[in-house]
């Protein structure tokens, strides 16, 4: 079986700092509105009052960093009417902007919101796994930026051998949709996709 690149996301130590998100924008020279990698904050719980004092009752939160999952079943590639999107031999899903007509079908198809529209250029853009850095033997920008060393990349088979096969926690969509090439180490308070009692805590404008 050919090598397939993927990410390991250690949500158990993610501190919500978004260094990965901003380093990605910085390295790839993206405008503020386009974020190939994002960090979502999920949490919940409640409070109970006792003698005029408030006690937390299962308050929790955790953060998940996510980008294009370079899926086994990339719905974006299937949705693209011009063939601009393709899956490379190493499993990386790339977009050829010369062939892209900006119809945004891929954006609608992807449950992760990975392909994003560049209004100024009229074309779609997405995570390219920092292919230029990989070619020079370097790490993707998000991996090196993390102060908690929470992002790792490599052959997905090796990552799964090391970290298991979990690829879905709230608020990520079910892994069955696109078979993402990612492994998540869940936070101690993580909830399974589709069964969460919490909510996305970010403001809508943040995501």
């Amino acid at each position: 079986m050919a090598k397939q690149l993927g990410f390991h996301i250690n949500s158990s130590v993610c501190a919500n700092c978004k260094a990965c998100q901003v380093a990605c924008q910085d390295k790839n020279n993206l405008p503020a509105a386009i974020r190939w990698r994002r960090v979502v904050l999920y949490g919940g719980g409640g409070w109970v009052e006792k003698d005029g004092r408030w006690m937390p009752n299962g308050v929790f939160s955790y953060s998940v960093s996510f980008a294009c999952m370079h899926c086994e079943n990339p719905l974006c590639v299937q949705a693209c009417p011009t063939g601009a999107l393709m899956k490379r031999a190493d499993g990386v899903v790339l977009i050829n902007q010369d062939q892209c007509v900006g119809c945004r079908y891929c954006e609608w198809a992807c449950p992760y919101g990975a392909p994003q529209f560049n209004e100024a250029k009229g074309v779609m853009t997405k995570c390219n796994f920092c292919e230029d850095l990989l070619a020079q033997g370097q790490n993707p920008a998000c991996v090196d930026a993390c102060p908690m060393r929470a992002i790792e990349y490599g052959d997905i088979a090796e990552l799964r051998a090391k970290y298991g096969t979990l690829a879905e926690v709230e608020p990520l969509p079910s892994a069955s949709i696109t078979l993402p090439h990612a492994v998540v180490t869940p936070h101690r308070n993580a909830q399974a996709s589709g069964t969460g009692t919490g909510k996305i805590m970010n403001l809508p404008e943040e995501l």
Partner: protein
Amino acid sequence: MKRKNWAPGGGKKELRGKDEWVRISWDEALTLVANEIIRIQAKYGNKSIFVSGGSEIGRALTLFGGYVPSYGTTSGGSIHATKTTILGYTGYVNAMMSDRMDHRKTTLFVHWGLNSISSSGGNPTYNHLQNKKNGAKIIAIDPYYTDAAQVLADEWIPIRPNTDHAMVLGMAYTLITADDPKPNPLIDWDFLNRCTLGFDKDHMPTGADPKENFKDYVLGTYDGTPKTPEWASAICGIDAARIRSLALEIAKTKNVGLGMSSATARQQNSDSWTQMFYTFGAMSGHIGKPGSFTADGYYHQNFSGLRCLVDIVQPGSSGLPSVGANPVEEKAADVWTALPQVPGTRLCESWMWKAIADGKYQAVKGQWRDLNIQMIYHGGGAKLQTVDGMSDGIAAHRKVEFVVSQSQILTTNSKYADIVLPVTTPWERDGGMVIAGNREFGLIWGQQVTKPLFEAKDDLWIAAEIGKRLGVDATKIAPLSNAQLVYNQIVGSKVLKDDGKTTEPLVTISDNDVKSLAEAGVVVKPQAGRVALAKFQELGFYQVPRKPGDNFEVVALKAFREDPVKNPLPNKSGKLDIHSKTLADIIESRGWSTIKPIPAYNPAQEGYEATFKDFKAKVKGEYPLQLYTIHYYRRSHSVFDNILTLRRAFPHEFFMNPIDAQARGIQHGDIVLIRSRHGKTIRPVSLTERILPGVVTLPHGAWVEMDEASGIDKAGADNIINGTVPTGQGTSGWNTCNVQVEKYTGSIELKPDYQWPQRIPIKEA
């Protein structure tokens, strides 16, 4: 550049902060600045010139007869005077924290107000993660379930801001009343008796009233109020049972790390809190033992390895000679000399804008003197943005005849100035030494990556050029080139040898280095050191490899515990002062408020108690919520707030519990109006269970954007909400404020911050 409607004497002063900008030449700018300095000094004297920051322009003005400086508690809060007095170490010198390798022995960490990931840059949180992997339990005491707590905390104990002191008094009461030498020893009497003064009536400092001891205060022997966990609970909001059990857990665990962040001291009336914290560390037995520490100031340096006690890498001096004392500044009286900040002619930062606006300042207690500041010179920094009481600050800026600011970007200092002088960043200069990081990673050689952009100039060059135009000896201002200053630091740097005792020079300077540097006008002597100069230049930094059991491990205050007579603390008594008349005298003499010599609880002016109209009957007042100001990933203080990707990532939202929101008809994402006694601001609100009901937080450092018609700040600047309320040692109490919040229904349309125009004063054609 100069303000369009500025003219010598001030022009239309009311337009400061909203005027247009005109680009002018360096020669014109320097001449205009120098002429105004000369005019103002001739008319009003040197005491009319206020310098808010930046050491370089101070060199020129000192030679020109002096200027009025300021003093403030900044990041360290009330730790400064308190720690200097009771322990002998200044605020930022964290001699209390053991080396990070020693933390691996610690099994319980208890943190008051630690959010290391967003307020201590670098890898302190990663370091803590290693302790956690090692099996340590971490308890976070904080009004907010912080990002660090999300990663690290085994338990989160929510607490009302400004009440840590009450909580720890309840813990002290628990230990004092439950301690029994035989079956249940909880108190480290050996340490208290040998190494501290004032804990009980038998160990008082000479001359002190025995009734004024700490133990009897806790028990309520003389004031009739025992500081029980129930008493504490009513103030801090933590269940009394947990206060009690936590005290016992700490006392019964052998290796404990007790930490307080300086956020807990950036509070009004907190001068006794640091003393309370160390008193509890002493009585519970966690000072000066392997695996145990009691330490304040969780700075980036400290938690990845104590920086200041014995640095493994020790930077050299730049060799820039002093130009002498500022002639305007009065000589400090004895009582101040041990302190990092000295009043006198200095303006207390948490009062200075009011002092300038009102024309009066308090030098020491009761000595109110006239003040006629007519010029504000921002030589660097961001004081108008980052000091409490910004509304008073704006008024002060619109009152004086002249405002100059040096900055790289249009900081708030510069936005409200008449003339802005663009300065270089470290990356545009000949390089510089960044003396940061932890003790084993002492030096980063920041090297020039670009020639100065546009027309930016170095601060020292500007000071010298202004000096020339003032007619002072400019060669004294900048006697050495920037390159020489940098190489002096490099050549003088030392590194500890493997024995952990002796040092050697960090870099080797060869004869060839001497020759090639001489061609660049830099004078150095050959020397043998650890790494070749070229190698150090290539790496850009030097770090000492560490391993457990090496000779660099330090257990803080171990020698003091073992023999306090031979190894006294560097304060007056040589011991930890649980009773300190000196501290009470210092606070008294500053004239803002008073404290007791022992750590007695002192409610904050705008703390929890002040949210009530009637505290006993529990009737809330006009400002019923407690606001404090967390550090925020979008910025480092106010720096980087102009960057759109960061604005996109972090919307500068206001955080509130859904319970408080529901009572006010507020939904997640609504725009809310936040009002305090001092100002108004609007922000999108994030409703989160991560914050204690009754407490709200507005992240620190957003760049003010006043809507002049309504007097509402649109940007959510913390210092519009925080007022001019100096207490104790002149502490800036950023984490102490009462507010009311409502859904905003006014006419201002608030777009997401990343859609705002950046502060770019003049666009290149």
